[in-house]
């Protein structure tokens, strides 16, 4: 009897809150952003830092009065890196009238591509998703807004070339990658460049979850003996690779990690800054706290009488969260301006995103230019290197082999 009553009480409470939730959307004049996160799934190490960065930036904007008089409400949904909840999240965003959404995860982006197009809501996938999505004509509502895996691959080779004295002819480059679609994606570019630049490339796959790669590292350092290593790993595996390479005596200054193998947490897990000394990382957003916007966020916390959160120390992912939020806000700002101050709809925000140009946020964002044709914004990256206990910028914003990337994009476009 009592159990029965209690269960119905639960149902009633839930129904009530559902109704409440539905009502809240009308409470205030505001613009809704949707944000998908993975705080508990296999890439939780990213989500638990990146998403607070996003939230903090929006809070900062709101604390300063919002965007052209519009407050922003962020609806964050943790999908645990599962696809069906990502679909549900999208539908929820749509219901709440979100004008854009930050998607998270390559399979999630793949599953949402069509929905975004049907529902005419733009979705961003910075640093992941398919590289072909840079083509705004083919994927009108998908916005990589940061260097795709192709651009990262191109940049990595460009950096290797620079490090190896400006010529790759006859050199050997090892590509160690997570054995999934994202890991394989840069291969097309790398193979192409191997031919045109005349270097020998060999690939070394690391299957998920990549907690151990003794054999692959042995193969690289013992048999292949490359001049340079490009590492495209995820999750826990970057730290394992750093540790193993160090253990085998390979100079980490001859290693560059793509964007998901490049965070402070990877270095800490590898055994600390001393171990990783010399390790190079590719970044699509600025690293460190030396940005006005980061200082503003710290000031915002202090003004509330709180200490800045620990997440801020993990600057790589935190800044990426800020980066995404900033671009979202900028797109909104453009849209509001274009509408003369009125509240824009999602279609207008998309056009706002497509007119982002010269927005650098004090160097945290590259000099990107997003256009209807190029949703990637140019594929800019920086190189930061582990030096003396911190990440130091060694190469400012650059594009690696933009021509080759463009050629591949054109080839993709002609396929469909």
């Amino acid at each position: 009897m009592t159990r029965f009553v209690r269960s119905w009480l639960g149902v009633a409470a839930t129904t009530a809150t559902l109704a409440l939730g539905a009502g809240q959307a009308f409470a205030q004049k505001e613009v809704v952003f949707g944000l998908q996160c993975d705080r508990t799934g296999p890439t939780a190490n990213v989500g638990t830092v990146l998403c607070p960065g996003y939230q903090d930036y929006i809070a900062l904007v709101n604390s300063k009065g919002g965007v052209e008089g519009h407050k922003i409400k962020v609806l964050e949904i943790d999908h645990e890196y599962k696809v069906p909840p990502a679909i549900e999240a999208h539908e929820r965003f749509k219901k709440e009238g979100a004008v854009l959404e930050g998607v998270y995860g390559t399979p999630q982006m793949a599953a949402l591509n069509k929905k975004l197009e049907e529902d005419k809501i733009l979705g961003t996938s910075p640093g992941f998703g398919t590289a072909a999505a840079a083509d705004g004509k083919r994927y009108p509502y998908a916005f990589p807004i940061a260097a795709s895996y192709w651009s990262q691959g191109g940049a990595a080779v460009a950096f290797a070339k620079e490090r190896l004295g400006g010529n790759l002819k006859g050199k050997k480059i090892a590509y160690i990658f997570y054995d999934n679609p994202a890991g394989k994606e840069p291969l097309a570019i790398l193979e192409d460049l191997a031919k045109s630049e005349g270097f020998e490339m060999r690939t070394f796959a690391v299957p998920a979850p990549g907690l151990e790669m003794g054999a692959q590292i042995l193969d690289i350092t013992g048999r292949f003996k490359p001049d340079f290593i490009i590492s495209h790993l995820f999750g826990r595996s970057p730290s394992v690779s750093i540790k193993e390479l160090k253990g085998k005596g390979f100079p980490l200054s001859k290693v560059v990690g793509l964007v998901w193998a490049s965070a402070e947490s990877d270095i800490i897990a590898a055994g600390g800054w001393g171990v990783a000394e010399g390790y190079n990382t590719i970044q699509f957003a600025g690293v460190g706290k030396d940005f006005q916007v980061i200082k503003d966020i710290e000031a915002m916390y202090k003004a509330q009488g709180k200490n800045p959160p620990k997440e801020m120390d993990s600057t790589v992912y935190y800044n990426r969260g800020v980066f995404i939020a900033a671009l979202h806000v900028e797109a909104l700002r453009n849209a509001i301006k274009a509408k003369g101050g009125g509240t824009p709809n999602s279609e207008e925000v998309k056009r706002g995103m497509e007119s982002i140009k010269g927005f650098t946020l004090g160097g945290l964002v590259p000099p990107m230019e997003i256009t209807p044709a190029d949703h990637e914004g140019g594929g800019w990256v920086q190189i930061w290197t582990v030096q003396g206990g911190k990440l130091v910028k060694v190469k400012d914003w650059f594009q690696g082999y933009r021509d080759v990337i463009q050629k591949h994009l054109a080839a993709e476009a002609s396929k469909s």
Partner: protein
Amino acid sequence: MREDLEFAFALLMSGASIGLMYSLIALGFVLVYKATDAINFAQGEFVMLAGMIVVTVLGFQSPLIAAIAVVVMVMIGFGFGLEKVVLRPLLGRPVVAVIMATIGVAAVLRGWGPLVLGIETRALPLPIGDEPIHLGPATLPPIQALGAVVAVLFFVVFSWFFKKSRMGVAMRAVADNQQVAQAMGINVERYFALAWAMAGIVSALGGVIWGSMLGVDVQLALVGLKVFPVVILGGLDSIGGALIGGLIIGIVESLAAGYLDPYVGGGTKDFAPYVLMILVLMIRPYGIFGRRQIERV
């Protein structure tokens, strides 16, 4: 030629040492299964929890040895509690129920662990240095050497315990038939709790060693995935099986990555051990050292 041999030897050594590290995790699983018939799909989360506790305690500036003492105590308590609250009510229920319950435990640990003990990735430094140990052409990271030593040590202690000590025999009797064991004057509940507590100790040290190797955060739990091919290959209820199973899996992974991957271009080491495991199961359905179920019609 010589280089090839050296490479092969290095692969073997690398595989063997990581394999013993796998055994370290698998041992906890086997202990619980052997004594209580329960299948623990949360073994990885146990290790994660242990690692998190250690780094949290270290965060209070306490010495490492104190942190290890704390984690061993906490994990023993945790094992006790888990057995009492979750596993005992499930006695005699289908395998899938126990599997699912421990998957539930895993979810709870992954959900609450980081909330309480900290989300961020933390290092777990052990005072054993980074200089690799040289064994001929092969090199061995000191942490893996330590893991191997601990695994072998556990193996010796537990083998003795189950074969020679009266408590060990009683524990096996409990595993065999709880009701009869009770009637023989054996406090079954105490022995179940003891088994989980032993698993807790193994997980605690597993957490220290793997945590030191990988750093500590939620993803440390992923080591649990390695348990299955090891214990199935070795036999679910065999301490020695966990050791040998770990060695074999480690070596097979290593050889697959070294010799198979270049031909197929992909990460075969993920499933190569599983293929081997299935082949073994086809010949010995209870693993290499597992006990045959005595079935009568």
